[in-house]
């Protein structure tokens, strides 16, 4: 009893005591910065020059290994894409095992094995590791480079490129890199469909034979493995790997432009501009400036609370996110900043970028701003150390960039020593004031105005080739809109030939983002029309007009058709919309100039329907054919998008020209229609439309 009482009293006393010990109303202060122990990994070199690092960490009975080829960047030229394709192909079979046998072998060990253009990585439990290492060595040194597997890799690469062509961010990356480094520099060259098609198995084998040499390679082993085990495994699997002379890459020094300029890539369907501001800077990894510069870069553009994001997103609402930074590199470093902004704010957004660059160059940041960022960075550094692979990555960097041995051990001390004044000094050095390349991918006609105050405005195509500014040429006074519409009808075959068409059935394929559908379009002149996109026998989307009846469906569900949508179908039913425009009272036309469509001059005509909806059509000046339509459309959750239809190829059937290759670009949705079969005057009736 007494005993219990005593304990309870003690407990109460402790509780009472503790209540005074802490002040809940404030966040507790951090303890002293933790001492970070980063042990140097063990290392040794095999006679063939392979450098091996071992980070022994017995926390878990698993081991991972990475073989890295430390070669200079390679200029690929007319076969751009070769190196990354080689990386993918390595994982698809060895001289001993085809892909499925290799997959089974890796799974049997409960392991993982992956490859890239200059590395192979593997990991598994310790007990399976010796066998996995054998597979890893086969993959690295004895890949099959099978020609059928190459075709699979090529297909994947090409579909990636096709997507990138339409992706404004990928365009901005390609063009800004090309402008910054030049076409003849490995960082500036661009992979194209043509260059990927040229890659052969022989090229890939040659790349592997030339560059995969032990004397430029690092083997890093991390986990439950001793140095002696590592030595014997490395020797057994990589010891007989023959060394060789690897060509060095020598490239001309990259210079920043003498004066800031604006590089515009015209993308008429854009409703947002991608702004990417870049300049090469001379900053090597591990240079004394590297750490203070990273603090400066984080203040300017690292993360949600950075100045660029606070300004462009939080203050002005131009964008969903803005950021930037400085990347050190052995060959040539870079300064960069970017955001995607609404069309009409392109000019203002560039102005705010430059304002923030100037502010960080000229004003000293507050101590509290710099301290908060340093805390954020040191916390991230500490957390990264939990993964033993981080220690290995540090060791690799020390070796590759010839850093002082204690570079990472003293990282936090160096970070802590960065002062506000240093931030300003680094900005003055690495945030160029007058030597920037401002790349903008967007709708040139809507965004170009005002950009010349930032520097000369130059135009480029999506592969970075210079081109003329898209100018609005004047239409000569004697050309009327009606004349342009009549000329189009004449080009299609003339009134006589068109009048002889009673019905037309077009069939073909439609490719929507890599998927193939069946496309059907039928006309029963003058007032029957049907079009459908089908998957097998299932109709995904239909539109129909039969006399006065209109209907449409999306994946089986009926869609309403009202007002101008009806007029739209009325026009389509007549096979050539121009006939409808000219014969229906109330249409208004306005010629707005001459613009290039796929490199050819075309009249640009704004067409306003009696119901008030507008669209823009382009007619080839020389041939008269309609080559492009643009119409703003509501696309469900994506909001308003400009839908651009390009008629790429016409073919004659029964004396009239029918578009057989049509591309529809509606922002994220892109469709290619290929008409493979056209039947005319088969006696199709309105009742048959389906």
């Amino acid at each position, binding site marked *: 009893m007494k005993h219990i009482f005593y304990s309870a009293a003690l*407990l109460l006393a*402790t*509780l009472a005591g*503790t209540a005074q*010990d*802490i002040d*809940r*109303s*404030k*966040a*507790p202060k*951090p*303890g002293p*910065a*933790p*001492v*970070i122990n980063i042990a140097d990994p063990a290392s040794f070199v095999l006679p063939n020059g392979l450098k091996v690092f071992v980070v022994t*960490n*017995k*926390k*878990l*009975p*698993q081991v991972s290994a990475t073989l890295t080829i430390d070669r200079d960047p390679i200029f690929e030229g007319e076969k751009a894409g070769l190196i990354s394709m080689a990386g993918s192909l390595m994982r698809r079979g060895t001289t001993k095992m085809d892909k*499925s046998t290799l*997959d*089974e072998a*890796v*799974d*049997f*060990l*409960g*392991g993982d094995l992956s490859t890239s253009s200059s590395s192979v990585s593997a990991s*598994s*439990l*310790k*007990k*399976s590791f010796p066998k996995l290492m054998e597979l890893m060595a086969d993959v690295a040194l004895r890949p099959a480079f099978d020609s059928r597997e190459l075709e699979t890799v090529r297909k994947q690469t090409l579909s990636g490129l096709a997507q990138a062509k339409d992706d404004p961010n990928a365009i901005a990356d390609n063009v800004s890199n090309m402008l910054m480094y030049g076409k003849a520099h490995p960082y500036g060259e661009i992979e194209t469909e043509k260059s990927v098609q040229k890659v052969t198995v022989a090229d890939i084998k040659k790349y592997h034979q030339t560059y995969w040499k032990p004397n430029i390679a690092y083997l890093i082993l991390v986990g439950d493995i001793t140095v002696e085990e590592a030595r014997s495994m490395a020797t057994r699997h990589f010891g007989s790997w023959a060394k060789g002379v690897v060509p060095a890459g020598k490239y001309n020094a990259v210079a920043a432009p003498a004066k800031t300029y604006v590089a515009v890539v015209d993308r008429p369907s854009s409703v947002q501009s991608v702004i990417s501001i870049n300049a090469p800077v001379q900053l090597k990894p591990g240079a004394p400036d590297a750490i203070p510069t990273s603090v400066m870069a984080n203040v300017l553009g690292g993360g949600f*609370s950075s100045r660029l994001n606070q300004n462009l997103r939080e203050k002005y609402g131009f964008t969903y996110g803005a950021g930037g930074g400085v990347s050190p590199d052995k060959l040539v470093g870079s300064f960069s900043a970017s955001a995607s902004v609404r069309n009409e704010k392109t000019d203002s957004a560039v102005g705010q970028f430059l304002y923030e660059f100037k502010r960080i160059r000229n004003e000293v940041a507050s101590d509290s701003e710099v301290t*908060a960022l340093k*805390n*954020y*960075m*040191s*916390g991230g*550094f*500490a*957390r990264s*150390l*939990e*993964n033993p692979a981080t220690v290995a990555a540090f060791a690799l960097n020390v070796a590759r960039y010839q850093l002082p041995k204690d570079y990472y051990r003293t990282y936090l001390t160096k970070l802590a020593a960065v002062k506000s004044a240093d931030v300003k000094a680094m900005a003055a050095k690495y945030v160029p004031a007058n030597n920037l390349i401002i790349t903008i991918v967007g709708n040139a006609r809507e965004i170009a105005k005002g950009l010349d105050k930032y520097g000369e405005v130059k135009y480029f195509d999506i592969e970075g080739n210079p081109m003329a500014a898209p100018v609005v040429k004047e239409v000569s006074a004697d050309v009327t809109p009606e004349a342009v519409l009549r000329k189009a009808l004449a080009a299609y075959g003339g009134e006589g030939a068109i009048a002889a068409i009673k019905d037309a059935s077009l069939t073909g394929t439609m490719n929507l983002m890599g*998927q193939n559908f069946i496309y059907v379009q039928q006309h029963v002149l003058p007032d029957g029309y049907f079009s459908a996109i089908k*998957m097998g026998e*299932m*109709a995904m989307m239909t539109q129909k007009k039969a006399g006065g009846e209109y209907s449409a*469906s*999306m*994946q*089986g*569900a009926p869609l309403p058709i009202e007002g101008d949508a009806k007029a739209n179908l009325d026009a389509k039913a007549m096979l050539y919309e121009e006939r409808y425009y000219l014969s229906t009272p109330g249409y208004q036309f306005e010629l707005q100039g001459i613009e290039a469509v796929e490199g050819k001059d075309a009249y640009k005509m704004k067409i306003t329907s009696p119901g008030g909806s507008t669209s823009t059509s382009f007619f080839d000046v020389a041939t008269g054919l309609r080559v492009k339509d643009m119409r703003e459309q509501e696309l469900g*959750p994506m909001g308003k998008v400009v839908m651009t239809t390009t008629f790429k190829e016409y073919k004659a059937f029964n004396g009239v020209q029918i578009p057989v290759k049509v591309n529809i670009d509606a922002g994220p949705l892109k469709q290619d229609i290929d008409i493979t079969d056209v039947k005319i005057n088969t006696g199709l009736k309105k009742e048959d439309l389906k």
Partner: protein
Amino acid sequence: MIAVKNTLTAGMLLAVVAASAQAPAIQFEKYQLPNGLKVILHQDKSAPVVCVSVLYHVGSKNEDTSRTGFAHFFEHLLFEGSKYMKRGDFDKYITNAGGENNANTSQDRTFYYDLLPSNQLDLGLWMESERLMHAEITDAGVETQRQVVKEEKRQRVDNQPYGTLVENIFKRAFQQHPYKWVPIGSMEHLEAAKLEEFVAFYKRYYVPNNAVLSIAGDFDIPSTKKKIEQFFGPIPRGAEVPRPNIQEPPMAGEVRDVIEDNIQLPAVVQAYRGPAQGTDEYYAFNVLSTLLSGGESSRMNKALVDQKEQAVAAGAFPFFLEDAGLFINFAITNMGVKPADVEQTIDSLIADVQTNLISEREFEKIRNQVESNFVRQNASVAGIAESLANYEVYFGDANLINTEIEKYRKVTREDLRNVARKYLVKNNRVVLYYVPKGQAGSAKP
């Protein structure tokens, strides 16, 4: 004679290998504060990082049938602020300390964690104790989070291809048990709920006697114990926490349905009712799922994706919970392939497991994969903190973090065949075909 000797050697070798694969035990200390809070401490000084986590034994199965979505809603609401923390401070403090935080909710529990540099341990303890002791539940906060949760549902369920899958499976597989709804719950229920209902939920479930504080990483044990006492000791014990006790009757027969979704490629789903987690059969199911879908060479991947090219992706997912489980087979069909054909292939794979014992070689492969995955789950202090808390709450035995692998090792080839025979039968399953909008009519389930 020789055969016997070889067997013996092989057996001995296996024993040696098994021993050598043994992960070093994860040491931890476990105790309870007088107010009922369970504390688990695992020290690991190899990196200057600490994870402070709190697991609350409340999930969607604790919800009222007319107030579904509450448990998950709290995962948002409890970042709104506390008596001593303004709105938005949770994230600000963590970011400025160089840390990272997040939370998640399941049918059975809600988990919060802060991953911090080790010198910021106190900050983590303070924030988590504030969350438990002083959460501010206000109309403004509730309204803000209603909007956020609605966006989350739009983004992760409605707008996600196949995003309604789990919801559609569970509402057909369960008729009585609260597993018939999913954690995201009903937006109408959240809309209709009054402030006092949220306050009542907080008072009922966010009490120390319903929580496990699990800390893993670089910290000093004696001084941390003292701080835990200081931060969490003064929080009063709550009333006994009610637990649902609803027995779900066996399925009355196979349930088949077609669901239309915003997708291009149809999908096939089979969900078989199974036992609760932690049973012997549960471990057999986990091994079975590895046979069917662990890695590139697994049976489903090989048959459906590589050989027949009927599917672009396929897998088997053991979805086992505290009171009951589901074993789910899932495949997304290739262009132009009928869901029924894909289902037939899946059925034939199941029939094979029911009829034939798998080979020794394949069994060894999947045991290796299971073992590898088991070891890897303990690669980070955050993973360890969460596993310790889960094991303690679900099975009352945090030490399963070290010993659970034995339960997997006990699974035999016959066990795989037995669970397949007992559970993977027609009358015990829900089959759903996911089809593009407008095509329900043409897809016969």
